[in-house]
């Protein structure tokens, strides 16, 4: 049972090479709603699997998890496809949940599940934005459309917020999750803590490159359909909720 549990956890809180399964599946899905559902459900199954183990993962598995997170963070730097980028970043973030579980940051399973949801939400939104950009431009590929800030200002505003949340910028749940994980890893495994911070740095680099590929550049000649004011307002409100969730979760994590 324990081996099966670990295997399930390694698939759903992806550890390399099991992580390839998620990324292959994610890339195959054409439908934005299906991708969004997958992003929400996948780590929750991992949290469930981890909960059934009834023990803390051994140290070597934690090193494996952080190595997976580092691998996908580095790989995301060279990715130009926003869909693929979302998958890589989600893989990198979810792998770090192993450490949260091991260091007792998430004292109860529901806290870990909440943390997983907090980490996943920006990716869910990104998956929706990928669908939207593909509809407008034919492909969500950095550098192809370019200049979204000029062409689709509202959509690019939401894209900026989503990428900022995905790279764990302050006040979103991801920020506090990474902060707590680093601080708790520090006295036990200082090398791992330093690696987590390096992963965070790689995320920022990767996020900045992705943003540049999409929003910067001259405006597209053909007129495009931007998000409506109501939709933009609702999405903006979703970010406010995300920030509030981050502040709330900080009380539990740190």
């Amino acid at each position, binding site marked *: 049972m324990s081996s099966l549990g670990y295997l399930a956890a390694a698939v759903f809180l992806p550890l390399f090479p099991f992580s390839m399964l998620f990324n292959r599946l994610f890339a195959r899905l054409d439908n934005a709603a299906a991708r969004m559902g997958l992003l929400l459900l996948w780590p929750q199954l991992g949290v469930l699997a981890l909960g059934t183990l009834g023990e803390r993962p051994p140290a070597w598995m934690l090193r494996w998890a952080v190595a997976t997170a580092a691998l996908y963070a580095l790989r995301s730097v060279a990715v130009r496809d926003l869909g693929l980028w979302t998958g890589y970043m989600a893989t990198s973030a979810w792998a770090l949940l192993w450490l949260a579980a091991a260091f007792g940051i998430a004292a109860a399973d529901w806290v870990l599940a909440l943390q997983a949801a907090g980490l996943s939400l920006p990716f869910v939104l990104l998956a929706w934005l990928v669908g939207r950009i593909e509809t407008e431009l034919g492909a969500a590929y950095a550098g192809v459309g370019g200049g979204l800030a000029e062409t689709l200002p509202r959509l690019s505003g939401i894209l900026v917020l989503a990428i900022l949340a995905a790279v764990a910028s*302050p006040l979103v749940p991801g920020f506090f999750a990474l902060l707590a994980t680093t*601080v708790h890893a520090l006295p036990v495994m200082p090398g791992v803590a330093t690696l987590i911070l390096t992963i965070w740095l790689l995320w920022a680099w990767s996020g900045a490159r992705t943003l540049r590929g999409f929003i*910067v*550049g001259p405006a597209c000649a053909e007129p495009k359909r931007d998000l409506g004011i109501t939709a933009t307002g609702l999405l903006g409100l979703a970010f406010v909720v995300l920030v509030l969730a981050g502040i709330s979760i900080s009380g539990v994590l740190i």
Partner: protein
Amino acid sequence: MEGLVVIVLLLPLASATATHLSAPRLHRGSVRISIIGMVATFAVTTLLLGQTLAGAPAGEIRLGTSWGVLLFDPLSTLMAFVVSGISLVVHLYSVRYMAEERGYPRFFVLLGLMTAALLLMVSAGDLITLLIAWHLIGVLLYFLLGHDAASQSAHRYAAWTLLTYRFGDLPLLLGAGLLYHAFGTWSLHAIFAQLASVPDPRTVLGLPLAETVSGLIALAAFARSAQFLLHTWLPYTMSGPTPVSALMHAGIVNAGGFLINRFAPLFVTTNGVLHWIFFVGLVTAVIGSVLMLAQNDIKKALGYSTMGQMGFMIMECGVGAFSLAVYHLIAHGLFKGTLFLGAGGVIHDARQDDGVPKDDLYTFVVERRPARRRQPWLLMAGITLLVPVTILVIAHWLVASDFFQKQGAVVLLFFGWVTGAQLIFSTYRMRTENIWRLMGLILFSFTIVVIGYTLISHAFDLFLYPDPAFRSRIYAAAGINVYWFDTLVILMTLVVVLGWLATYYADENGRRWKGRLSLLWRGFYRLVARELFVAGLYARFSERLIGIATRLNVLLRWS
């Protein structure tokens, strides 16, 4: 008082939100809300500083359970006053300067958010709040520098800045984590109180805690204040709007000096860390100044000038002159902000007149201006060496007669000496009919500046660190063995004296050396003109990393 601290933070935040929300209806008129918000913020920070100067006791306000603590102490109120003042000037300047730009209201929203983040940083009373503000400043600066969404180069260098800032966030986070584990609290006040009560012998990974944490904090300060090897972002961010350059050089880049001052109670318990800070600051000051001289672009030259100034500020911290570093960052902020905001005008003037000095023979024959009258070089060298040091010693002695006991003060005296000497040397080379009159006026100005500087820095010392025992501890932490210090002082005096004698001699008889040195000089100039290849090396490193990532992606079939 507590309420005012919260209001100071909320005002720019609220005005930024109101500007954003009203932009669709009011369009460009929405920026008025931002301006009103900044005027109000500045008024409240002035009131806060006034209350602190009037002797209101320091304290803190707690907005959350584990974090969200805001301080009101001399350092936070002074810095809040400076930040809001500079931000107000930048806001007002931007009203017309940015009027033709796309995303005009967005620019003011970002300025307001940046002001709020800076104010949060200076008043943060716990490590988490400090980390949040520290991180947010980097993110907001990225968007301010990349305001022109059509400019690839602006975004490229904005991303470079973001990465350096994120690199600087990491040691601060590590340091915060170590402090939390050592003291069991995030509160700065509680940590400093524990540090003050007992000397801390704790170790972390076999290293002394205080030295390790202060080293990490210093590293975070180096990244934020563009110290050598972490400086490349600063001169390259000139593609951003000029008001952002002004705000960045006048306010944001100074954060390193602020951070070291905020952690002063930790630094006084360390042994040797301040010496390293001094060394890094010194190297940065020298390299920044040399690189500045080799630039032919005014904004880039200003960027390297800021690097040199930041080196000097960090160096002041390294010699234990913490409050002087705060005074320096304020003074530098004011003059550098002015220079940036005036850079456009200078460029305009340069198009009318290049300002390149004409040949002596040309000015004498064609313009009928008097030829330069040279005084004996040995006499001038003697004046150059003796007059500034006499003024400096008398001014310092009048303010604090025991200043010779403080090694830091003596080190800084050397820099004042060299600066004063440089001033007289410049006078010596100027074309004037009556050099003594000009020199008299310049020396009078120098005396006024030195006395003013000495008095103000002393006042800063008393305001920021009123406890004389604590002030002595700072200098003691920065001090070195007296024997070695005296040896270094003698050595430096010899270097300065011989250096100026050689400079005057070379100015008089320089043509004889020119041929022999020109090859060496050209090689050095090439190296400096290419900015020591540091930026190129980083670019190569990042390209290599991207190459590795691409190969990995291909190898793993993009999954």
